[in-house]
């Protein structure tokens, strides 16, 4: 392995992430809120496929370790972007509050804030996503759990185990 291989790994990983971002910015302009999760998975896989294609056919990067490191760099960059930038932008209450308050240079009163953004808006936004993903279903005006093993509960159980492990509870 030479320094060139090292640079190539970093470059292909970064390039894949740039491709992911481009696909993401193009595809997500018209994507409905209920298809966000599927959209992220598809964009991630599309950029991953392109990365592997470019690495193997054009750059002749055939070593497993090089490909593995390149894919790891791409996956971690995408993970960081989705969970730390896109996720909060799309779903965070705090980020929405900052944006609402920023519309007035002198700030906003609590009453003005809750007139624009309140529990109803929060619930409507989330119900749109949860109904679309099938995690919640609506029958005769009542909301039911769509799937018992949805991603939230699986992640919550994992978080619970991790919390107990980290904090010795």
């Amino acid at each position, binding site marked *: 392995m030479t*320094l060139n*291989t*090292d640079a190539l*790994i970093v470059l292909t990983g970064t390039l894949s992430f740039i491709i992911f971002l481009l696909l993401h*910015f193009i595809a*997500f*302009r018209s994507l409905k809120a209920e298809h966000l999760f599927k959209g992220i998975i598809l964009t991630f896989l599309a950029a991953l496929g392109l990365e592997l294609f470019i690495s193997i056919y054009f750059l002749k990067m055939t070593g497993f*370790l090089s490909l593995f*490191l390149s894919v*790891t*760099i791409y996956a*971690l960059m995408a993970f*960081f972007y989705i*969970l*730390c*930038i896109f996720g909060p*932008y*799309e*779903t*965070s*209450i*705090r980020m*929405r*509050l*900052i*944006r*609402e*308050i*920023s519309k007035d240079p002198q*700030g*906003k*009163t*609590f009453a003005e*804030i*809750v007139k624009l*953004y309140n*529990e*109803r*808006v*929060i*619930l409507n*936004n989330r*119900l749109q996503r*949860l109904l679309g993903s099938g995690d*919640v279903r609506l029958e005769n*005006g*009542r*909301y*039911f*759990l769509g799937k018992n093993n949805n991603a*939230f*509960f699986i*992640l919550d159980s994992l*978080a*619970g185990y*991790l*919390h107990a492990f*980290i*904090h*010795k509870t």
Partner: protein
Amino acid sequence: MITVLLCAFSFVCATVLHIFACRYSPDKNLKSKLFLQISAAFLFVFIVVSLHFTMPLMWACIIIYILLVPAYLVVYVTTELVSPSKRILMSVANPQGVTYAEIIEYLEKENLITSRLDELVISGCLTRAGDWYILTSSGRSLAAFLDIFGKLLGRGVGG
């Protein structure tokens, strides 16, 4: 391969040390800053060893190590949070189902807006003057970033 193993070992050591500190610390607050310090120390050791032995793939490993730090922190912080979507799912988990009004009632008890506004004041993004909430300079920078990002993404305001 040895560089990758050394990088993985350094990161695992930083994580184990952090978990150890969390488990045996008398206060149960989040210790994200501590993890940043521990991981920076292990990264420094990794770089010194890699340079000393002129190990291959050093840059790729350094970048992976740096990217693993926020990945771990996201998972670590998530163990402490309950998202509003999860609260909604918890409320609809009732076998008889729930109405829209019942979910709203449940969410209103959680004080989703006031608790977030208080956290934004504590974190220095907002200042509070009586009933008024005003953005600080860091809050304005964040708002400007969100605005640019929103234009790039071409999506609604989110939340």
